[in-house]
Structures are given as C-alpha cells and as structure tokens.
C-alpha cells in the first residue's frame, strides 16, 4: 500500500490539536500523499475555497470555533463540497447513531490505527 508517486489531489486534515495534525501530515506525506491542514471547521471551509477538492477529508469532531459536526452540516449543504468523502478521527467515544448521522467513509479513534487509515485513504485517493 505504499506509493512513491505523488498524487495530484490532497488529503485535508481538519484537527485542532497541532501535534496530532502535524504528525498525521508527516505520516501521510511520507506515504506520498499531498496534505493540507486546518485547525477548525471554519478554517477548513476557507481552505476548501482555495484549493482543488481533496480526495478525502480527515475530520476531528471536537474543535473550537466550528466543530466537526457543524462543518459536516455546512459541507453537505454546499454542492461543490458535498461529494468529498469524510473519515472521522476522534478522541471522544461517540454513540453509534451520532456517528452514523455524519455518514462517514471511516471512523478512527485516537490513537489512530494507521494501517486501517491508509487502507481507507487508498480507496479514495
């Protein structure tokens, strides 16, 4: 599952904890992916207006300013963004229905199972 080719589209990591975000970015970049980051939902929306739609979004849920839930709502209402697959990466245990309501393509509890993450990313990127 490793790749030495660079992809043209990138992975967007939306995560407020800088160390978590940068660690994931380093890891995914090492795997050959392009990575963009945002510290909360609002920042992410701004980033998405500037770049090509990412192949997948890795979304944290508990964030200041705009949470993962709020971001997902906004994303689903925007036709330009609605189709981008979203995988949830979270530290809080959530109920099954709350997660299902987000309709994600993957659900990862921290600390992230990296091989599973790579498998999911490879499907869309």
């Amino acid at each position: 599952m490793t790749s030495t080719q660079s992809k043209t589209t990138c992975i967007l990591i939306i995560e407020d904890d800088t160390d978590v975000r940068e660690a994931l970015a380093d890891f995914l970049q090492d795997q050959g992916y392009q990575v963009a980051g945002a510290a909360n939902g609002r920042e992410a929306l701004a980033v998405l207006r500037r770049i090509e739609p990412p192949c997948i979004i890795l979304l944290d849920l508990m964030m200041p300013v705009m949470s993962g839930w709020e971001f997902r709502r906004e994303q689903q209402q925007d036709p330009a963004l609605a189709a981008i697959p979203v995988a949830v990466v979270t530290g809080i245990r959530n109920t099954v229905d709350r997660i299902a309501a987000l309709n994600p393509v993957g659900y990862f509890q921290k600390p992230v199972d990296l091989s599973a993450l790579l498998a999911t990313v490879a499907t869309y990127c």
Partner: protein
Amino acid sequence: MLKEPGPLLRYSSAVAGIALATLVRLCLSPVLGADLPFITFFLPVVFAAFYGGMGPALLALILGTLSAAFFFIHPAHSLTIAAPAPLLGLALFFSVGLTSAFLCEALRHAQRRAEAGAQAALRQKGELEREIKERRQAEATLQFLTHASEQLASSLDLQTTANQVVDLAVPLVADACLVDLLVEETTIRRIAGAHVNPEKRELLRELQGHGPLSVSAAHPIARVIRTGQFDLDPEISAASLADRAQDAEHLRLLQRLDPRSSLIIPLVARGRIMGALSLWSSDSGRRFQAADLNIAEELARRAAVAIENARLYQAMQEADQHKDDFLAMLGHELRSPLSAAHTTLQLLRHPNRDRSDPQRLLDRVERQVHRMARLIDDMQDLSRINRGKVLLRPEPLDLVPLVRETAEDCRGAAEESGLTLAISLPESPVPMRGDPTRLSQVLVNLLNNAIKFTDAGGQLTVALIHDANWATLTVKDTGIGIEPGLLPQLFESFHQAERSLERSRGGLGLGLALVKGLTEIHGGQVSAHSDGLGRGTEFTVRLPIISLPMP
C-alpha cells in the same frame, strides 16, 4: 343531689313546725285537756331533725318543751311543771327528739359522704375520659406522622417529595399547604402547593407563578426563613394579608384565596434553614393555635429531612454526571498526545523516505510525554487540594522576580500563538511568605489559559501591584471572554466557558480549579471579570503579604 337548705330555712322551719304543733295542740285541748301535752310536738321535732339537722332538731326540742310547758302543762301559762305525769311525757319527748336528731345527723353525714364519693367518682371519670381522648389524639397523630414518614421516604425526587408533603397536610392538618425553598442563599422559591378546595387550586398555581421572593422581604415566610422561628397568625387581618403581597395583582389573588389563619414552620435539616412549610386555614373555619404547633413541627421535620435527602441525591447525580463528563473529556485529552506520539513513532520506525528531521519528530514525541505527564500532575494536584492534602513549602520570597521569571517563561508560548505579552511590575520588592513553586504554578495556569482562549493578534498583560496588606496580580487578555452567567462556576474543574460540548477547545478545566485551590491555601482570593463574549477576560489574584499562619 338535693341542694342543702340554708341555715335560715332550716331553723325557721323548726320554729314554724313547733308553732304549728302548738296551734294544733291548742285545737285539741277541748278533747285532750291536759293529757298528752307533747303529742303534737313529736312530728315537728322529727321533721326538724330530718330536714334541718342536729341544730334545728335541738331547737325544736327546746321550743317544743317550752311551748308544752307553757301552754299545756299544769299550771298553764307558766313554765313550771307540777305533776309527775308530764315528766314521763317529757322524758319520752326528749328521748325521741334526741334519737331522731342523732339518727338524722348520722343519715345526713352518710349522705354527705356518699355525695362526696359520687363527686369524686365523677371527677375521675371525667379525667379518664380526657386522658383517653388525649391518648387517641396522640395515637392518631403518631399514625399520621408514621404514614407521612413512609410516604416521604418513598421518593428521592425533589418535586415528588415536595408534592407529597403538601398532599399529606391537606386536608388533615390544614386547608392549604405550601412548601417554599431557599435557593442560593437569597431567593425563596415556591415549589409545591395544595388546597382542599379544587376551585382554589388554580389560584394557588397562579400564585406560584408570581415569581420568587427575596429572603429579606417583609413577608412572614421570609421572616421565618431568616429567623428560624415559626409564625402563627390565628386570625389573618387585612393588613397582614397585604404584607404577604408583592403587588396589587398578587394581593387580589391572595384575597380570592382568602386564608383566614396561618401557621408557618421553618424547614430545618442538618442545622441549616432550607425553607418553610406554610399551613393555611380558610373555608373550614378552623383557626390555628399553639396546640397545633406540635404536629406541624413534626411534619415539617420529616418534610425537611425528605427534601434534604432529595436535594443531596440530586447533587449526587449531578456530581456523577460531572464525573462522567470529566472522565469522557479526560479520555479525549489523553488520546490526543497519545495519537500524536504513536503516529510519529510509527513514522520514525518505518519511514518510506529518508528523513532529514528525526530531531523534530523526536521533539514532538517528547512534547506529548510532557503533555500527558502535566495532565496527570494537574489532576493529582487538584485531587490533593480537594482533599486538603497539598504540601506547601513556604519560604520568604519576593513576588517581583517570581512574576517576572514565570511570565517570561511563558513568553515563548504566547508568541507562538501570535500574542504579545506585556509585564508591569513595581519598582520595589514585594516580600511575602509562600511556596514559590505553587505561586508560579498559579501564574502559569492563568497565562496558559489566556493563551488558549485568545486568538492570534491578541494581547496579554501581567501586572503586579500592592498595598500594605495585599499583593494584587492581574492577568488580562483580549480573548474570547466569558459569558457573565458562567462566571460563578468558572473555578470548578471541567466547566468550560463555552457550554456546548461539541465546540470546545478541549481541556479539563483543571487550570482554574488549581489556581483557586492554590491561591486559597496561601490565604488569598482569586476572581474573574469579563465584559462578555468577545470582550476579553481579567483574572485577579489577591495574596496577603502580612504573614499569616500557613497550614
């Protein structure tokens, strides 16, 4: 029981009897001559003995003898007695008379004894009946209170319990019953009410909606709660009713409810006055009096215990929820550094490309270790503070260099977040006695908090001033501010200023709880002020600089 005739009557009837006997004997004189001079006098003497007693009998005897001697014994019209024959009659007369007198006296004596005995028996019966009535009442009261205890023990829900209290009191003890509780030391809130008259129940509900009462109001309920003394108003006057009204509308409601008599008992549990139980009487015509106090106080005692239990249970549930929320957040807080460390370690172990930056990656791992260690230290510190077990190492110190160095240590983190840090210190030293590590911890926590909640471009200010007795340290930021309603809970652990759990900056809110705990064990106080959301926050720490005994 015949009423004993008075002495006048007794003696005059004796005299009258003799007079009559004399007359009759006079009438019989033509037939009898001088024979049987005493014959008619026997009857009046016996009668006098029976009706009048010893005294009148003796009087009748003497008068009879005199009369007979004067009128009928030879020589007539004189008191001398010549012939021997009348002496027999006289002797007979006297013996009959005296015998009658003594017998009748004995009879009267026995009668009096019997009457006294009867009266005593009657009294005893009356006392017994009273005692039985009292015992029955006491039994009924006990039964009522036992039933009340059972009912009140059946639920730990506050509203249910309060409703049970009022339903128990009405209609057995009162026509209407109200339960008011003291909330947050200053406000009195009505939480339950009942009325025997279904039409008035709606009015009671309206009364309840009339808003809380201040504990310093002139209302008798407020007075009862302030003083812990009961208030008994056997006949509520118009003026007294007006005292209970907060406004004209309220007064009209009260007038329609028409309470005529009231008894208000404080609800006391664990030595604390927590509210009041009001008993009203209106339609039934019953008026409260001191005798009703006993059962009212007993009911109030049980009600207070039950309500306090419900409150404690509620507090316990809230604490439980708080703990659950805390633990959930704790999980989140630990998982982030774990995740960052794990991801970075995986990269270090199986890199796909050559890394030119192992140091950066190792630094990140180390940083996560420190984060987790810090979290655990904070939690343990807070736990120790809460249990009163923090070990202080007090020594004489100067706050000026302590504040300067600590603030400077945080400058890096501030600048990394795009913030400026200004430090304002006095020229001369500010000596005090304290634990420098802990005081430093207070400032670090306040600064970290300010950094966390202030967006890039903002400004932080640390200032220290003092007077003769107090040093005042302020940490001000231009950050997101705090909603005024959340200020009271700010220093409790895990009460994020932003309520919504979704949108949060994470963190367990331990920092401020630690700040408060550590400040207070130095004998100081901490407070927070914010003009509102988006308007920044200022924390003020006051520390005593005269030497106070350290725990």
